[in-house]
């Protein structure tokens, strides 16, 4: 992949932030998801500092991060790692650059579509649609049925008043 596919202003901002990082590793040692990532937070920052942002755009890390804010809270220089990750995630998502962790990407889309339609989340429809598009058709089928019978999934969606105003937000 080519270098510097990120716009200059994002790149510059990341660069400024990363000047503060001295790789102490408090972020990675506190990260509950580090074991699931291909680049744990410290490595992730180091790669960005070295200008390998194109590799990071296709990393698993940006999708695995659960935004728990532990790294940000622990960092001695208050580097906002979740923000950097969110920036890259938004960039990748808009341009459909990555096919890593596809189910999560589909999840984001279906979630937003649901809000667009009802203004609130209708869990049964939302999960059903996500299953359909993510290709995980039969996983959790049992779980879904069990939740349905426990009364956890409502059949009909609630709709809010003034739905037009919500739709306007998406334009």
């Amino acid at each position, binding site marked *: 992949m080519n270098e510097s596919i990120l716009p200059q202003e994002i790149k510059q901002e990341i660069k400024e932030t990363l000047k503060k990082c001295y790789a102490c590793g408090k972020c990675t040692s506190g990260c509950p998801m580090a074991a699931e990532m291909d680049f744990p937070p410290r490595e992730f920052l180091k790669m960005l500092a070295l200008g390998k942002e194109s590799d990071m755009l296709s990393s698993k890390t940006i999708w695995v991060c659960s935004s728990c804010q532990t790294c940000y809270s622990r960092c001695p220089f208050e580097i906002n790692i979740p923000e950097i990750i969110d*920036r890259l995630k938004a960039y990748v998502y808009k341009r459909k650059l990555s096919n890593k962790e596809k189910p999560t990407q589909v999840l984001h889309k279906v979630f937003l579509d649901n809000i667009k339609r009802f203004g609130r989340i209708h869990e049964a429809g939302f999960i059903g649609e996500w299953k359909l598009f993510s290709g995980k058709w039969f996983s959790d089928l049992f779980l879904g049925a069990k939740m349905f019978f426990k*009364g956890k999934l409502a059949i009909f969606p*609630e709709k809010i008043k003034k739905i037009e105003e919500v739709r306007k*937000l998406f334009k």
Partner: protein
Amino acid sequence: MQYPYFPGCTLTNKAKGLNDMAKAGADILGAPLKELENWYCCQANFSSVTDNLMNHLAPVRTLIAAAKEGQKLVVLCSTCYYVLKRVSAIMARDEEKRKVVYEFLEEEYTKPVEVVHFLEYVRDEVGFDKLKENVKMDISVLAIAPYYGCQLLRPSKELAFDDPFEPSIFEEFLGALGCESVDSPFKTECCGSFLTTFSEKGVEDCVDRVLTYAGKNGAEAVTTSCPLCNFNLDWAQKEIKNKNEKFNNMPVFYLTELMALALGIEVPVEVWDEHVVDPRPFLAEKGIVKRTAL
């Protein structure tokens, strides 16, 4: 003083126990919760990219609606609390962004609304002393580990809920209810969050850590205010048990269910039915719920 209350989507769907018991409890405490008339999904995920206002408009609309009904907005779900409070912080400190919002929504964000969590509401508006006076049932036999999760605490500068690594409000609340609160090392760690959608193993690791260490410290159950944490902690246990025989299953309570028990509210069967790890045998063993009621 009555303030508007924001339940959130999950509390009207999956987490009815959390919602209904909170309302019933608040009624007894003389501080009833009045649902905000027109509320919207909080969007469930705060975008850390703060310069793109598009990502924050949905919560702003809820905040504007809340400002018409009171100075504070009471929120119970941790995720909604996190999103609404962070967005209100952005709005409060940045006049330029307020202007952009005004131009787009054609509704002005003038009065700042203070977003408070249900725990803060009970502490500040009712008082833990008064909560204690209202306790009808002795639940001192229960050893409960409070689980805060991420979204009540971090980033602490914006949320200002409690100390990010040594919080205590949950313990004070449980103390007022009269049960034993057990400290545990992973009470502020992540539960795995939405990773439950594609990496079960990641979630299982997190949940295993939280519950095992709470158990080692003497807890028999955990409690939380977050529907997603509750889902992960509750539903992941079966798989963990399959992989590790020695793992002890543990009921996961919503904080409002414990409050309802202590205040002597009759908890409907449907609320207990929502649980995967059924808490009724545990409660019966402790003499809290009669066996005949099962």
